[in-house]
């Protein structure tokens, strides 16, 4: 089997996975059993395909095998009557909504959407929603999720087991109509955003990024925008993720060091993702200017600027002003201060940062100190910059960011050798 056919097969499995879980769920009515059925179906393919050959329509083969097994499980466990009574729709036959997910019939048109909505059940914590979505919808193994989230495998396994138990205890079933899904839309988008953030900027660990999770989040965002085509907010999230991912390849050097926007090679930015982001952003603009849309607008300003010098900082500050009106958080205020520094110079942003550094929510993070250090550096205040860099280094957990800060700190000595000598002399005198 060639690499290409292996990749094609991986895509088939990936696309089919949530559909299989959904189909099994509709028959067996329980997430754990549904997962076992799909697991067994995939293992059967693993037994048979290498010997008999990959079927012409592997997706159809998997679906048929999955449904048959699910029915056998229901029959064998003697739960036929209960299962039939709880089944809102025919398990095997397509229902009217299948043909057109956005038909507006009031019924959810796709098992994958039902599955995402189930994984984002309000009875679950955000962490559990993320883990369950990655397992059930994206098909990642517990170990892969643990690696992606930098957690022990046992912790993730417990999270998933507990989440399934909670769903079973509260008798959670597939929601069947769009209003129910719309009620969970906010949680669904939050989960996708969390997955993306976890993948895009690792909170801890060696590498700055964990690509698989970030791209899984993009795939989920695409899926949701296709399944709920009439809603603008998922489009905003898709745009935001697409713009951010377009810079993926250029965010770090070959050695793994962070490259800031002004250092990145814009010719290597992914133009397909930028185009997809622009399309999604246009669709999102039909809705209200919520936090996701405004963040997508910000990302678009960066992704579509011809060069760093051509970045429209006036527009960016204006968008941050609007964002602060709908999402008044210290992090947004800090990012706005960075934009103000770019537009009006570091001296004008420093008072804003001084105020923010007193905010307990920000003071515990390395970012505010790193940003203030950079402003001091640009203003030529070496002592203040050094103090802030050192403070940031005490708090940073990500290895790539630590390296960036250390490099910046070392750069101070090269840039201001006279101050270094003066301080050395003062130290000598003091001794």
């Amino acid at each position, binding site marked *: 089997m060639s690499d290409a056919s*292996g*990749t094609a097969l*991986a895509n088939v499995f990936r696309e089919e996975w949530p559909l299989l879980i959904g189909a099994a769920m509709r028959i067996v009515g329980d997430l754990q059993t549904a997962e076992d059925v799909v*697991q067994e179906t*995939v293992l059967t*393919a693993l*037994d048979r395909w*290498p*010997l008999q050959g990959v079927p012409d329509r592997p997706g159809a083969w998997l679906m048929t095998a999955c449904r048959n097994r699910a029915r056998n499980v229901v029959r064998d466990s003697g739960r036929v009557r209960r299962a039939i009574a709880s089944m809102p729709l025919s398990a095997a036959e397509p229902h009217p909504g299948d043909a057109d997910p956005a038909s507006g019939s009031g019924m959810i048109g796709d098992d994958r959407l039902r599955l995402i909505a189930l994984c984002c059940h309000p009875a679950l914590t955000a962490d559990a929603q993320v883990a369950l979505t990655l397992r059930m919808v994206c098909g990642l*193994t517990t170990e892969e999720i643990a690696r992606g989230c930098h957690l022990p495998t046992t912790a993730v396994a417990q999270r998933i087991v507990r989440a399934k138990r909670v769903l079973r205890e509260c008798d959670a079933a597939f929601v069947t109509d769009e209003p129910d899904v719309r009620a969970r839309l906010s949680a669904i988008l939050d989960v996708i955003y969390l997955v993306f953030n976890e993948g895009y900027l690792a909170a801890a660990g060696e590498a700055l990024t964990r690509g698989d999770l970030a791209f899984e989040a993009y795939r989920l965002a695409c899926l949701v925008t296709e399944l709920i085509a009439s809603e603008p907010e998922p489009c905003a999230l898709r745009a935001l993720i697409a713009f951010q991912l377009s810079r993926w390849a250029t965010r770090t050097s070959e050695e793994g060091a962070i490259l800031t926007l002004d250092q990145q090679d814009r010719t290597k930015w992914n133009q397909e993702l930028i185009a997809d982001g622009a399309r999604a952003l246009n669709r999102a603009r039909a809705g209200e200017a919520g936090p996701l849309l405004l963040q997508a607008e910000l990302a678009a300003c960066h992704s579509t600027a011809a060069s760093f010098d051509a970045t429209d900082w006036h527009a960016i500050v204006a968008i941050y002003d609007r964002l602060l009106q709908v999402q008044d958080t210290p992090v947004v205020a800090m990012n706005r201060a960075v934009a103000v520094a770019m537009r009006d110079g570091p001296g004008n942003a420093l008072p804003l940062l001084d105020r923010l550094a007193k905010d307990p929510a920000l003071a515990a993070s390395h970012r505010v100190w790193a940003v203030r250090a950079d402003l001091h550096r640009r203003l030529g205040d070496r002592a203040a910059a050094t103090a802030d860099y050192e403070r940031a280094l005490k708090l940073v957990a990500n290895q790539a960011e630590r390296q960036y800060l250390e490099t910046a700190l070392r750069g101070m000595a090269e840039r201001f050798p006279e101050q270094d000598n003066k301080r050395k002399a003062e130290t000598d005198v003091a001794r």
Partner: protein
Amino acid sequence: MSEFLLLGARQPGSAETSPRLAANDISALTTWHQHLRRWGLLRAFALPQDSASGLRVCLVIRASGQLAASRLAEEWRRRSGYEVSVVPLCDASQGTGEGHRDRP
């Protein structure tokens, strides 16, 4: 050459897989079976209709002896994740692999 029956079993719920892992495993296993066929070592295979007992796949292979069959079994186990048993079908009693010949 002698014939051996390799029994590949998997306990229910013993392994967690993902789309990517499954695709990788199928690719690797397909390649391995192709090599067996090309070398004339795979005589037949059988896939049980019901895998409730844990038995998933049976292969009839040709090997120069028990040792060679065990080596193939170990490779199959490594690639598939099965628990593999080796059953001599005919005339493997003498075999350590070296200099063993088929009898008529």
